């Protein structure tokens, strides 16, 4: 890594100019954390000023019984294994009934395992059920991995699957399952689920249908730093083509209870560095989310100084990440979120799935 390259990369980052992979690697190696933060926050402020977003959402995980058996996952159960569950129509009805009383609920977020027997109709019916119970709420559901699974199960094309779900009321895709878009890495951490090409195809198809998505990264496992940064450039290329990503969300890998439990969870230094670097690299993505259930709230709040502009939601009942040993709380009140944002000198904005501001209620709820 030459001094000239580092200098050049710093100048570009400082001026919010587009970085290339070599420059991003140089900034990574340079390891000047608060310089990266300063540059990233300036880029954030060009995009969303002093605003920091959050939404009132509810996560539903339909099942944890999964055919893909990914080593990276702590959530999965094999069929018949103790602790496995599948939510049926009546279970979901109960959850939705409860959701109706959540004021300002803006979004239902549904991601699940790849169940061996549940047909596509099961998932489709869930979307219909949610749409019927909560007509105003955005339904953000199914990662590209699940969409590929539906396509394989039904023999329908990805486009057809997405069109059917869209018609039933699906609003957007969460963009999970990207992990690191490198087949070398996927072969080790998730050999049986959607490949790099399938993930990209699904996302591009969704964007072309007007279904917006998020994009994600899971880092801190067996990937090299170059693979990790290359992943961000792959996402940037997709965004240049389609413009369909709303927000980027990164997940530090939690090794507990996974097939990769010999690894250590990366530290907060790495988390903040990736937060800032992703803001700088993904110059064409509007929003960078600090996912507090992964990062812990103190670090997520601090991330607002590192280019993040979204603290995600108030989240009820998240299961997948907590299965991997995250010991953060299962939810947070709106007033607490707003207080943390205000304290950091930003303006809290309650949003819907599409980042339209909505009027925030004042009551405290779980």
């Amino acid at each position, binding site marked *: 890594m030459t001094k000239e390259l580092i200098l050049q990369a710093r100048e570009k980052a400082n001026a919010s100019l587009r970085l290339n992979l070599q420059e991003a690697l140089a900034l990574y190696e340079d390891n000047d954390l608060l310089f990266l933060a*300063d540059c990233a926050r300036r880029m954030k402020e060009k995009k969303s000023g002093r605003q920091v977003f959050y939404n009132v959402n509810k996560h539903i995980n339909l099942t944890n019984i999964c055919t893909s058996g990914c080593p990276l996952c702590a959530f999965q159960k094999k069929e018949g294994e103790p602790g496995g569950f599948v939510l049926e129509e009546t279970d979901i009805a109960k959850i939705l009934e409860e959701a109706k009383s959540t004021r300002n609920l803006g979004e239902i977020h549904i991601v699940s395992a790849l169940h061996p027997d549940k047909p596509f109709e099961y998932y489709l019916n869930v979307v219909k059920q949610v749409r019927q119970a909560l007509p105003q709420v955005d339904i953000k559901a199914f990662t590209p991995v699940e969409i590929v699974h539906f396509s394989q199960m039904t023999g329908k094309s990805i486009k057809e699957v997405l069109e059917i779900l869209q018609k039933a009321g699906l609003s957007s895709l969460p963009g999970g399952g990207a992990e690191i878009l490198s087949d070398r890495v996927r072969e080790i951490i998730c050999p049986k689920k959607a490949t790099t090409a399938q993930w990209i195809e699904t996302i591009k198809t969704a964007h072309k249908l007007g279904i917006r998505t998020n994009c994600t990264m899971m880092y801190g496992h067996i990937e090299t730093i170059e693979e990790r940064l290359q992943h961000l450039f792959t996402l940037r290329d997709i965004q240049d083509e389609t413009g369909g990503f709303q927000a980027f969300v990164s997940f530090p890998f939690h090794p507990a209870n996974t097939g990769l439990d010999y690894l250590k969870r990366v530290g907060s230094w790495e988390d903040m560095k990736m937060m800032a670097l992703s803001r700088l690299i993904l110059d064409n993505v509007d929003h960078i989310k600090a996912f507090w259930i992964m990062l*812990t709230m103190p670090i997520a709040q*601090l991330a607002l100084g590192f280019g993040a502009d979204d603290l995600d939601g108030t989240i009820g009942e998240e299961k997948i990440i907590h299965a991997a040993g995250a010991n953060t709380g299962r939810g947070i009140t709106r007033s607490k979120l707003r207080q*943390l944002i205000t304290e950091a000198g930003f303006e809290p904005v309650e949003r819907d799935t599409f980042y339209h501001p909505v009027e925030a209620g004042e009551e405290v709820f779980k």
Partner: protein
Amino acid sequence: MMRMNAKEAEQLLVSGDPIQLGQLAGAEARKRFGDRITFIVDRNINYTNVCVNECRFCAFFRRKESKDAYLLTFDEILGKVREAVDAGATQVMIQGGLYPDLGLEYYEKMLRLIKENFKITIHSFTATEIQHFARQAGISILDCLKRLQAAGLDSLPGGGAEILVDAVRQRVSPKKIMTEDWLHVMECAHSIGMESTATMVIGLGETMAQRVEHMERIRQLQDKTGGFRAFITWSFQPGNTELGGEKTSGWNYMRNLAITRLYMDNVPHIQGSWVTQGERIGQLTPAFGADDLGSIMLEENVVKAAGTAYDMSIQKMVDMIQGAGWQAAQRDTEYNVIKTYGGKADVR
């Protein structure tokens, strides 16, 4: 660099930007210590939880007649020191509640016994305890410190300072040592070559002006004596206390940390507190001006579990430092480096 004045510090504590302040504070720390981040291996020995002070922010104290009140015997204390020495500790920090009736001889004997049996630095007794010992013995603070020094006390930890503004102290710990007395204990100690650290506890409901007043009092004394080795900010832990309230946020802690590096320009070392803020905030503190991460406090059970568990905790500290790209080094009480750890860690 121009010395920061109290008005500027107050303004920055209210609305300063932690990232920009951190950049300045980090540069100041690097100018002094380069890429090195230090820690110490020590053991806390709390010889008693009996305390006459009953402070509202304290979750530790018991009344003497309480069922779970305790006072360690000298044999128990020596046993703990032995475990610490065996585990590689270079320092013991002996602190306790203000026991109503032990007498100065008791503490002198404790110190002598430790020094006779072990080669270890005794960094012990807060100003509050020193004042209590002196009062009980009916002698001056200076004489009390001289006797303790003669018995083996090497240096004083800076605890019990909380916020050195009597209005705050009256509210949170009315029976505990007041501002002038705390500073007097430190000044006396420094005058006989007994160095110390200084602490500040934030989140006690103090105003930013009061925080600055605290820093200013210590900075002034330091100009006079030069005896403070380090400045350490703890955030108040509201759990199980009468005072209660909310824990200081990451944002406010980092802002405060950076300002202490910039304001306390005559104190060489600034500690980042992973103990009160957690390891995740702790790992970030060197970016905001810290050059030391304090102590690996050997826990009772950790020490007893011997080799492995102990290695793990040093390993964890070294990983935390190296994982952020710094050079990790173990130090002694006087901040001399006694061991450096090679190579930056593979962060993955």
